[in-house]
């Protein structure tokens, strides 16, 4: 407070009106230093995380090299570790999830941003936000007791009956497997796609819509041929975000994928994912190489999500600046 300082501010030409000493007495420099330490610790922790993953997987990286990604043997007894089945499972479940979540999510986002009155849109968005807050173990719980029985009794036999000629839908219906994990993942990532896409769509300038309508476009044509293409980058960003979520998702997938390291064209087959194998085997990993192979899987997961999140952020920022620059209603 001013009463504590008796020095008349000497007119420092650069550092503003207060001398360094008075700022120190008033605590500004101390406050700056303390808050700086907290902020810097965030950077430090992040660097440490990368370092630990890199260091912790050194043995496995040196022993297997790139072969780690292309071999399918996962044998703790003979110390042979290949990640192919897990990478395959992670990719397949994520692709299935996106195939379901993208059309549904974008459709819902279009409804919320373009069609629904403000109040309804806000209310629905509130529910979507709550849905995004549901923890993954709850999705896993419902996956185990609701989705798996439904898959086994109804959906998988139905798919076999209609599309059974495709290799995707052949083989016994266990209930667990790639398809089930993909469906549960889809349900989990839909809220992310909706929230981000809705924001992006709402930021599309109003004159874009009006111009299309004035040219005689129907409401759908203006939405699909003008508004959505304008927002394309940001929508892609939301999909990348969703993909990053899906790749790293652990609990729900672990509970429904079947936890068997198989590579099979059939989506009915039980599988395994990177996150699931870490969750299941980390505490049981005997031997350094075993543990380090699991940590290398963690490193792979980290790098994948790092890249996807980065690309997503760039796309979203670029798109919202494009809309914001023109000024929206």
């Amino acid at each position, binding site marked *: 407070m001013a009463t504590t300082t008796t020095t008349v501010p000497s007119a420092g030409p650069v550092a503003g009106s207060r001398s360094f000493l008075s700022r120190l007495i*008033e605590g500004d420099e101390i406050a700056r230093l303390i808050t700086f330490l907290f902020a810097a610790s965030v950077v430090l922790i*992040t660097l440490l995380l990368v370092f630990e993953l890199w260091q912790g997987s050194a043995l496995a990286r040196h022993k297997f090299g790139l072969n780690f990604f292309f071999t399918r043997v996962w044998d703790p007894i003979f110390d042979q570790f290949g990640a192919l089945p897990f990478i395959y499972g992670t990719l397949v479940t994520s692709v299935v999830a996106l195939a379901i979540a993208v059309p549904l999510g974008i*459709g819902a986002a279009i*409804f919320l941003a373009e069609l629904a009155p403000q109040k309804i849109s806000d209310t629905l968005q509130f*529910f979507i936000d709550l*849905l995004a*807050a549901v923890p993954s173990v709850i999705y896993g719980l419902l996956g185990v007791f609701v989705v798996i029985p439904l898959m086994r009794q109804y959906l998988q036999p139905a798919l076999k009956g209609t599309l059974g000629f495709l290799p995707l839908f052949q083989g016994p219906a266990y209930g667990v497997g790639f398809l089930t994990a993909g469906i549960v993942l889809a349900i989990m990532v839909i809220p992310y796609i909706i929230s981000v896409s809705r924001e992006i769509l709402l930021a599309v300038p109003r004159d874009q819509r009006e111009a299309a309508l004035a040219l005689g476009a129907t409401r759908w044509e203006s939405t699909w041929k003008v508004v959505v293409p304008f927002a394309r980058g940001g929508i892609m960003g939301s999909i990348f975000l969703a993909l990053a979520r899906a790749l790293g998702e652990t609990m729900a997938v672990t509970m429904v994928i079947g936890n068997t390291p198989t590579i099979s064209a059939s989506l009915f087959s039980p599988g395994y994912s990177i996150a699931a194998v870490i969750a299941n085997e980390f505490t049981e990993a005997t031997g350094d190489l075993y543990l380090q192979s699991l940590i290398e899987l963690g490193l792979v997961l980290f790098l994948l999500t790092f890249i996807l999140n980065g690309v997503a952020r760039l796309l979203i920022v670029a798109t919202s600046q494009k809309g914001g620059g023109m000024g929206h209603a």
Partner: protein
Amino acid sequence: MNSSLRWRKFVSGFMLTMTGVCAVVAVSVLFLILGYLVYHGGTSISWNFFTKLPTPVGETGGGMANAILGSAKLLLLASLFGVPIGFFGAIYLAEFSGGAIAFVVRYAADLLNGVPSIVIGIFAYSLVVLPFKHFSTLAGGFALGLMMIPITLRSTEEFLRAVPSTLREGAMALGASKSRTIATVIVPAAYRGILTAILLAFARVAGETAPLLFTAFGNRFWSPGWNQPTAALPEMIYRYAIAPYDDWHRQAWAAGLVLLGLILVVNIVARGILARGIAVPRS
């Protein structure tokens, strides 16, 4: 021409209806989840659930008192660790920092926010569990706290920045130092937003399971100390749901109901605090 217009109008109406269907499907998932949990969990929940320890395999009854206490301890630790870093870090970003450092801190926070929770678990394992040679409450709290940092940091910064600069200038003009201004003007003005940010971060980690699997690990009894393994509600849901016993499944449903109830209530309260209006009008 006329028929083509009719066709285009039909397509428009049809597709727009479909988007509505998509929205209804997406939102109905929330109510399906709630419905299932209330139906299955509501019938299995009892006083014992909150007060008793888990029973040995084969005996019915028992509860999850140790997991409830374990979750409370983990979340307390997580908040003690994550909230100060997020809060003070945000003050630095919003009030003190220059361009380059702020960029690096924000970048690190966003990166940390995107790290899959299982990888956070690996990190906490190698940083806390290995040196102490123990699965522990401490390690679990550390892992959850890590996940709270980026959420608290980024949203607190946003809310601090939303405080109009006229307030800052007013305080400075009265002769208040910068730290004084922050403590008595800016933070109080943004407190609703900051509280919301902290509550949402709390709700986010309250349901996390993956980072606990090899940090807090789980425990069928009372955890004897901070340096010992402990049970936690989400972790118990996982172990009970994949176990082959009917009684455990019932308990898993009950735990799911309690956990989701807690998380949704915190979420709704947090958003309610914010919706009542930030104390400061957006200039």
